[in-house]
């Protein structure tokens, strides 16, 4: 079995976990939720094992490099990061309804990698521009940031759902965490994501300066990461200094995540230096 096979299996494990979380939420049962937690743990371990296997396989092919060099590899890493951060949150706050909103994102990410005909899962040699120690630091920090923003997005959706139901009588919302808690958690995830997005942009700039001789070239991917940074900077300032809370913060967080998605996928439609990320 090679890493691609293992990661295909992980896709279904994550899909199963997502269904379990949603079932646990809708039917208000503890058992599917408990099972879901263990399923995600299993999936995340398989996911990590798949990444390590792929790393080893690349060395066996004689083109050894960290498996963070193209769309397939980044999607696989993305799903692993969201899953791990989610597990930490679940353990810290003892709430599994969050899983019904976070796990589908994990599943979608790896499913797109494994199943889409547009995403090539072959291990390819590194082009000269990517041969750098900055590759690991840059890609990892960016995806920690993206993953935190993804979870903030899921929580913001929950917040808007919870607020849509003013009287608190909705069947699905009766066990929902308190809006204030969700609002706080969104903020926490955004600060975490903002730190890593900043480090991701910084490592990217330092790398660009050693590869191309310029730390900033207004390439579409750079620009979109900066747009994302501006949006989340707005969120932090509006919340801390102007006391924005609740719905407005949730909307900004959702818009921010749309910018993340565009930085990640949309930019490939535009011409620029990051064309190898396709």
């Amino acid at each position, binding site marked *: 079995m090679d890493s691609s096979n293992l990661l295909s299996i992980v896709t279904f494990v994550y899909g199963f976990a997502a269904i379990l979380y949603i079932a646990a939420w809708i039917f208000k049962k503890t058992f599917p939720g408990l099972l879901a937690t263990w399923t995600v743990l299993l999936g995340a371990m398989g996911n990590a094992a798949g990444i390590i296997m792929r790393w080893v396989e690349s060395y066996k092919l004689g083109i050894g490099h960290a498996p963070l060099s193209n769309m397939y590899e980044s999607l696989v890493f993305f799903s692993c990061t969201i899953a791990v951060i989610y597990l930490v949150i679940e353990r810290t706050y003892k709430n599994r309804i969050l899983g019904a909103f976070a796990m589908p994102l994990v599943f979608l990410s790896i499913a797109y990698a494994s199943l889409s005909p547009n995403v090539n899962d072959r291990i390819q040699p590194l082009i000269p521009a990517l041969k750098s120690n900055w590759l690991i630091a840059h890609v990892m920090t960016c995806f920690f940031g993206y993953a935190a923003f993804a979870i903030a997005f899921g929580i913001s959706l929950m917040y808007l759902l919870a607020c849509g139901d003013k009287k608190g009588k909705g069947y699905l919302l009766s066990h929902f965490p308190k809006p204030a808690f969700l609002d706080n958690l969104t903020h926490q995830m955004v600060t975490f994501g903002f730190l890593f997005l900043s480090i991701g942009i910084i490592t990217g700039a330092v*790398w660009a300066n050693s590869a191309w001789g310029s730390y900033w070239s*207004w390439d579409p991917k750079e620009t979109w990461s*900066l747009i994302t940074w501006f949006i989340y900077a707005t969120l932090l300032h509006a919340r801390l200094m102007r006391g924005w809370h609740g719905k407005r913060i949730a909307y900004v967080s959702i818009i921010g995540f749309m910018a993340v998605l565009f930085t990640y996928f949309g930019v490939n439609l535009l011409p620029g230096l990051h064309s190898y990320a396709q």
Partner: protein
Amino acid sequence: MKKENESANFFSRLWKFFASIRLTVVLLLSLAATSIIGTVIPQNQSPADYFHNYGEFFYNFFSALNIFDMYHSWWFQILLLMLTINVIVCSLNRLSTTWKIVFVKIPPFNVSKFRILSNKEEFTSNRPLEDLRNKYEQAVSKKYGYYRAEQTDKGFCVLAEKGRWTRLGVYTVHLSVILLLLGGLIGSIFGFEGFVNIPEGETVNSIRLRKTEQIHNLDFAIRCDDFSVSFYETGAPKEFRSTLSIIEDGRSVLQKDIIVNHPLRYKGINLFQANYGMLPPEEITLNIMSRETGMVYKKKMKIGMPIEVPEGVGTFVVKDYRNSFNYKGIALGETFIGILNRKDGNSINIMLPLNFASFDKMRKGDLIFSVADYDNGYYTGLQVTCDPGVLVVYSGFVVMIIGCLVTFFMSHQRLCIEVIKSGSKTKVMVAGTANKNKLGMQARVKNFSQNLAKL
């Protein structure tokens, strides 16, 4: 007197305008929104391309707004400048208050404020006051940088705090943003960006600037000793490598191989491997076969210099080398083009594509020309930059990361333990506040109180 008032009034209104967080939000969102334009409309292309793609009206409209180089346009720079002033004014505005809080000699504690906290912890103990006081002071000293114990009417209290300085974190983040913008400014004033192509074995001492296309002389010369390119089995490029020598006063002072991601830096100037290409050949060896006799003649010749063709047919000259050539709609690739001048006065164009050795057979002439060999050299394409602002930008990066860590994950935490003698027992209250992450502080206070209760 009135005028002075007016100008003071104007200044204070300007200050107020820039001290607004609403302005920050507007500026950040405007920068985000306008930045999108430059990712959708390709930047810094030739005017002809734009004209072709957008038509006359939009071409004029976009040109007037500098959309084709929008990140350097006056209006984008104004947005950046306003953000800078906004950051500076906001920071100064709040810094004086924060400064007084941070650099206080004896941190003030108001015990009554801790008493009214909703999340305070309370328990009772049987131990004598003095005993508790020593134990609590010891426990607090392990966790908090500053503490003091005060005698009260009915007992004592221990006051402790740490992380007062973290209140300055946000100012360091703002400082880092200013450093980044300053570094960018220094780079754009004192730096340059250019390129140069150096054929193998040759030396240059000037480059062409990318913006103005002007020639820029360097203080030293660069020689390309060697260039090589290697490919993976898939055909994708594996490595571009140039061996460069730096030459000063006619002497080679430094030799280094550069590849992508490993540039050469010398006297503040950076040389990056950017691209490469084939040099047009200067010498070519031809096989000339006579159709009649079957004899093959090998002739070495320079491009542009006519030679006598064997068997007294006339003269032949190679006029040109093309990287790509189309013959009747068919792409032949790299091709030499020559002219055969026959003695009878006829001139015949002869194409010698490198990929099709027997191409000239199809002409059905009495002589068949083909390329036996030619000199093929590479030139290396270097990106040459000088940016004295990089150090400032990099220090901005470091300050930003440290600042974000402090601002987001560290807080000014204050703790108050009040111990009161009531009858034979002592009542203990533990309460704490933090300026950030209040939930985390609640958990810490609870934990700490439980530990104290066990002492």
